[in-house]
């Protein structure tokens, strides 16, 4: 067993850290908070130039054949600087979905994401179906798509949307231009841009249906595993930043004539944050390898364990960071509270703690039977 990052991954991470530090941070974040628009085109182009768009995709579509861990290290750094640009939602999410479908048509779309600034959002959730990605409420009846998707990340900024829908009892993946849909934009808790998309009897031709049945189920399940791992990577970046800022604050903030970090209770709070952070890091390494496994049981177990652990400890670190900061920690002026929002947000995407604990319990039974 070996936990070192490869030279290549280290380089990707270092480059990402430098780039993100130069172009992001609290000021950029606060600007973005006040826009419902997509990210700055020049920053978007820079990401492409850094090779991030093609990073985890096959060379055949213009990618570099990188691993999940490479992307995870980027997303970790992005979390640490509160980056709101939709790299994961408009590139990695749809990209992995298309790659796992693997049909010619899908790969062509993927290639256009990598090369041509095609913007495809993923619509996997609606509030009726909740976290059950294999049984969306949206359905195709008589070649018409009707119903609603919610919580579509950057759904307002994309040209097209990759949406799941039921065709009979088969899960189907449809690529729909967004012009013909009613899109309602709003902001997510973390400051990102979400949208509801209403499909009002949108006519679906065969061209738009990318695939259906077991193949789609498998592709969705594998792509979502990536997104779950990347949720945790983002949370780790935030947790790490919170810990460091809080430690620094405890060393400098004086009350009763001494740094608050000299009080034993604060010391123990910080030690708890630190030891939790170490375990969060271990879980991130683990999931960055296992979320890409073909073995469904092991993959889902790893993703659920990590998501559940992060929903618990990541959130606790953020709460404790606020408590130790005191009043200043609950203001919008300081980044602490914004990391807290990010943490809550990511603890709810792609399955919350309870969902994942239930899944682990169910997988356990499956294991026992198998």
């Amino acid at each position, binding site marked *: 067993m070996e936990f070192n990052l490869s030279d290549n991954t280290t380089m990707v991470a270092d480059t990402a850290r430098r780039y993100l530090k130069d172009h992001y941070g609290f000021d950029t974040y606060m600007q973005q908070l006040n826009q419902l628009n997509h990210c700055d085109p020049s920053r978007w182009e820079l990401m492409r130039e850094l090779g991030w768009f093609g990073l985890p995709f096959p060379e055949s579509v213009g990618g570099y054949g990188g691993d999940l861990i490479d992307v995870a290290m980027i997303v970790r750094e992005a979390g640490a600087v509160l980056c709101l640009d939709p790299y994961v939602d408009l590139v990695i999410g749809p990209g992995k979905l298309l790659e796992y479908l693997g049909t010619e048509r899908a790969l062509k779309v993927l290639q256009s994401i990598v090369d041509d600034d095609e913007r495809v959002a993923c619509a996997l*959730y609606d*509030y*009726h*179906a*909740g*976290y*059950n990605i294999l049984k969306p409420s949206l359905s195709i009846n008589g070649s018409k798509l009707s119903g609603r998707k*919610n*919580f579509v990340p950057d759904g307002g900024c994309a040209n097209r949307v990759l949406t799941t829908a039921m065709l009979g009892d088969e899960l189907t993946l449809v690529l729909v231009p967004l012009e013909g849909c009613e899109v*309602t934009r*709003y*902001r*997510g*808790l973390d*400051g990102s841009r*979400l949208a*509801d998309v209403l499909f009002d009897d949108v006519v679906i031709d065969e061209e738009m249906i990318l695939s259906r049945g077991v193949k789609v189920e498998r592709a969705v399940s594998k792509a979502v595993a990536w997104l779950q791992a990347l949720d945790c990577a983002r949370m780790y970046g935030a947790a790490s930043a919170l810990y460091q800022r809080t430690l620094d604050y405890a060393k400098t903030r*004086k*009350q*009763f*004539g001494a740094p608050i970090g000299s*009080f034993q*209770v*604060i010391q123990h709070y910080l030690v708890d944050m630190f030891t939790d952070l170490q375990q969060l890091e271990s879980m991130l390494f683990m999931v960055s390898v296992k979320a890409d496994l073909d073995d469904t049981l092991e993959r889902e177990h790893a993703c659920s364990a990590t998501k559940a652990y992060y929903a618990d400890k990541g959130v606790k670190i953020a*709460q404790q960071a*606020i*408590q130790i900061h*005191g*009043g200043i*920690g*609950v*203001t*919008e*002026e300081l980044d602490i*509270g*914004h990391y*807290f*929002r990010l943490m*809550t*947000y990511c*603890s*709810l*995407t792609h399955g*919350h*703690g*309870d*969902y994942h604990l*239930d899944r682990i319990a169910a997988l356990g039974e499956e294991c026992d039977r198998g």
Partner: protein
Amino acid sequence: MNLQFTQEEQEFQKTIRAWMRENIPEEISRISALGEMPEKSQQQQWEKRLGKQGWLAVTWPEQYGGPGWTATQRYLFDLERAMAGAPPVSPFGVAMVGPVIYTFGSAEQKERWLPGIASGETLWCQGYSEPNAGSDLASLKTRAERKRDHYLVNGQKIWTTQAHWADMMFCLVRTDPDAKKQQGISFLLIDMNTPGIEVRPIYTIDGHHHLNEVYFTDVKVPLDNLVGKEGMGWTIAKFLLTHERTTIAGVADSHYALARMKMAIDEAPYYIDKQQARRRVAELEVELMALEYTNFRTVAATDEGRPFGPESSGLKIKGTELQQKMSQAMVEMGGLMSLVWDSSSAVGNESFNHSPRRYNFLRACTIYGGSNEIQKNVLAKMLLGL
């Protein structure tokens, strides 16, 4: 041991319930149902309505405009208020500066200030914390220099809730810079319209404007606005800390939050595992019950004219911890619906959409008014003798 409300108390409760149903503006109860707080105009309109009814300064002696209720009646009133979806009365006038004025103030001060508080006309804010005097309040630096016919105030306050709404501030200032920490502090009433006062907003992580920084530059405050004597500020501040303990636990509003939670679960159309959610609600319900009966003991002691016992000492700690737990449960139960920050229309259940704001806001409740860590330090010393 008698844990029933009397026949009279039950009648009282019914009267209040009926009145609330008729008098709470619908827009206010709609806001409360989302876990949000009203705007200034809504809040003040509501407080004036209470004031008109004589139900605003409910803890005050009758001679100053209180309704002459028992602590039990006040508890029931607060419960019905909360369950009907009305916000708590702003504490700064009624619960804080009012009692200070009628306990320590001169006859002129009582006459001048109390009526406006009891009617809801005058809005107050509290000038205690400073950038370097948070938990360590006694380190405050805002200076009030005694001149011939006024105090000259210079300095800065922070975390001043509703300073942007307030007509008046009650304020701890340092009148004697040479005295030791707790000494040399005085209690001053400051008109917020006085030249030299600047109020700057602080936005909190629920996205709203509740808090402010307040800057004082050569602000002239009449000598008459000193409450008590110079140097009595710390004594007055401590008096307030131990004053009214029967609502500090937030039981009424937690009952309301629990009811909202149950309703949201019942209405949740879909994937929420309802059995599990109800189990989690049961856990919170049990904790609320323990808090509530502890609170009842404080209420009963008050009605019997006994001093608060040790049972009241944990009310703030337990009450705020519970509020945080409940708001977190609401967010977590909401799942995807809690991802929404600013949608103008509901995405699924609107209460869940708004839950993160309340959750965020309530992170402050274990911090303000003396963080729970400070509360524990004090209890260890005062009560446990450690």
